[in-house]
């Protein structure tokens, strides 16, 4: 019995460690937040880029329409790359594109839109990044597809051809 005790204990420990390490071998060590879909959209007040009027989100978002919330900034390079896809989506009639200008200078934001075109129906300002956190974002760009005041799809990073196709499919 005494002789068997150590080998049993050590094989037991070894097996536990082996399972743990083997399981985590394939896991990515970069964590992306759980894709929080089917969640209600946050409520916030925000100023607009082009108009002076402040907007209350609860009054703005209507239940029977689709919205694409796009968090962008003029200093963000991937935002330039995804701009062409946003322009493509702005042709869709039953989709409203809402921009959330993240920690940007108003002058630069306006210059960015003059330069590349304005696909947004409305642009909210988020000068200190708090509204983006309310949405559950942690960087730019991020996009949220909203239907019936619920987040239906969340895209972290720039939009791509495949995500545009999926959005078009979802809003049909």
């Amino acid at each position, binding site marked *: 019995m*005494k002789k068997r005790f150590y080998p049993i204990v050590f094989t037991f420990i070894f097996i536990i460690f082996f399972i743990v390490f083997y399981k985590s071998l394939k896991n990515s060590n970069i964590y992306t937040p*759980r894709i929080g879909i089917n969640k209600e959209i946050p409520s916030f007040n925000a100023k607009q880029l082009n108009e002076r009027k402040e907007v209350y989100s609860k009054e703005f978002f209507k239940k029977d329409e689709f919205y694409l919330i796009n968090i962008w900034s003029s200093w963000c390079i991937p935002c330039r790359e995804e701009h062409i896809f946003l322009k493509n989506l702005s042709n869709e009639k039953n989709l409203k594109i809402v921009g959330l200008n993240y920690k940007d200078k108003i002058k630069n934001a306006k210059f960015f839109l003059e330069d590349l075109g304005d696909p947004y129906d409305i642009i909210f300002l988020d000068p200190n990044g708090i509204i983006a956190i309310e949405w559950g974002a942690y960087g730019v760009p991020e996009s949220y597809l909203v239907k019936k005041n619920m987040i239906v799809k969340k895209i972290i990073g720039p939009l791509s051809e495949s995500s545009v196709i999926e959005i078009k499919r979802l809003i049909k």
Partner: protein
Amino acid sequence: MKYFKYIFIIFFIFSLHQGHSQDNKLESKITKNLRCLVCQGQSVYDSDTEFANSLKLLIKNKLDEGLSEKQIYFYLKEKYGEWILFDPEFGKKTYFLWLLPLLLFLIGGAIIFKLFIIKKN
């Protein structure tokens, strides 16, 4: 009487300062327990990314609104998942993490028991 007035003013300033620092303490305690999602492995307190700076501001606002520490954790967990907390809760995915030290302790205890106490007898 004149001195008394000065002492009162000094006391008042110090007490104001103390109140402020206590608030900051809670704020930094919370931000130290939050993982920055951009530069992973660093806490929000240590990080200087856009995300971390916004989060610090948000926590300050939430504390001013009167939310407790637990409510803030719950709020952020809802948004970003449990990963954002450095101190994970006991659950399906974390039971091994919490029980492993206990398990090792028991095994160690068993070895010591085997080696010393049984030998003595």
